C-alpha cells in the first residue's frame, strides 16, 4: 500500500494508477528518454529532452512546448533510484537561480501483468512551497490550454 510518512502526509498530493503493462516495461517508459518524451505531455504539448541521466544526482533537463508556442523549461534531479521499484526526484522550473519546487516519489508495484504506479509529490518547506505554487500555477495553466487542445489531438489520433 501507499503508506504515507506521517510527517509529510499533510503536505503531499498522491495520485495512483494501475497501468496495463509489466513493471519492467513501465520502468523503461519512465527512464528512457525516447520513451518518456512520447507520453510526458501535458496533452497537446511536445517535449524536447536536452539531457537525461538516470543516476543518483543525475539531471533530466527538458522543455515542454505548449500548443500556443510557450516553452516551459523543466529540470529534474534524481535523488534515489531503485530499479524497477522506486524513483525519487526533485522537480523545478530550471530557473537561475534554481527554485526548488517539489520532491516526487514514484513507486512501481508489480500486480501480475499489471503495474500500480503511485506518484507522491511533497512540498518540502514554506519557501519550496512558495516556489512550487508559482510553478504549479504554470503547470496548471498549461493544463488548461492542454484541455482545449485535447479535442484536436483526439481527432487526429482517430484518423
Amino acid at each position, binding site marked *: 500500500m501507499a503508506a504515507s510518512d506521517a510527517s509529510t502526509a*499533510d*503536505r503531499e*498530493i498522491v*495520485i495512483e*494508477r494501475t*497501468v*496495463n*503493462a509489466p513493471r519492467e*516495461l*513501465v520502468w*523503461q*517508459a519512465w527512464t528512457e528518454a525516447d*520513451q518518456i518524451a*512520447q*507520453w*510526458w*505531455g*501535458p*496533452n497537446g504539448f511536445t517535449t524536447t529532452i536536452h539531457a537525461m541521466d538516470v543516476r543518483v544526482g543525475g539531471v533530466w533537463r527538458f522543455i515542454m512546448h505548449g500548443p500556443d508556442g510557450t516553452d516551459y523549461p523543466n529540470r529534474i534531479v534524481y535523488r534515489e533510484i531503485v530499479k524497477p521499484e522506486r524513483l525519487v526526484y526533485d522537480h523545478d522550473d530550471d530557473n537561475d537561480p534554481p527554485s526548488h519546487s517539489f520532491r516526487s516519489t514514484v513507486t512501481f508495484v508489480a500486480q501480475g501483468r499489471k503495474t500500480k*504506479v503511485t*506518484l507522491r*509529490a511533497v*512540498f518540502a518547506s*514554506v519557501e519550496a*512551497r*512558495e516556489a512550487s*505554487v*508559482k510553478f*504549479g*500555477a504554470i*503547470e*496548471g495553466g498549461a*493544463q*488548461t490550454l*492542454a484541455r482545449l487542445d485535447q479535442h484536436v489531438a483526439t481527432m487526429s489520433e482517430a484518423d
Partner: protein
Amino acid sequence: MATDPLTATLSALADPTRRAIVSRLALGEASVTELCEPFALSQPAISKHLKVLEKAGIISRGRSAQFRPCRLEAARLKGVATWIDEFSRLWEERFDRLDAHLQTVKKARQKGKRHGRK
C-alpha cells in the same frame, strides 16, 4: 514582499493547529473560547493562530466587541482546492498517456516476437 493569495493560504495552512481550527470552523462559526476547548493551548496562542488565518483571508471575525465569532471564508480554500485539482488532473492525464504508450510498446514487442527482428 507581496505574495499571491494562494501562497498566503498555503502558508497559513502549513500548521496543524490552524488546520484543526479550519476543520472546526467548517462545522460553523465559533468564538475564541470555543476554539480553545479542543486544544491544549492558551487563548493568546489560539488568538495568534487566528490572526494568521485572518490575515490570509481564510477566516473572518465578527464585529461585535466581546464576542467576535470566527467564520470560514470559503473562497480562499477553493483556490487551494482548484490548484490541487489542476495538479491531479495533469497527472491523471499523464497516466492516461503512459498507459496508451505502454500498449503501443507491448504491441510492438509482440509483433517483434512473432515476426522476428527486421
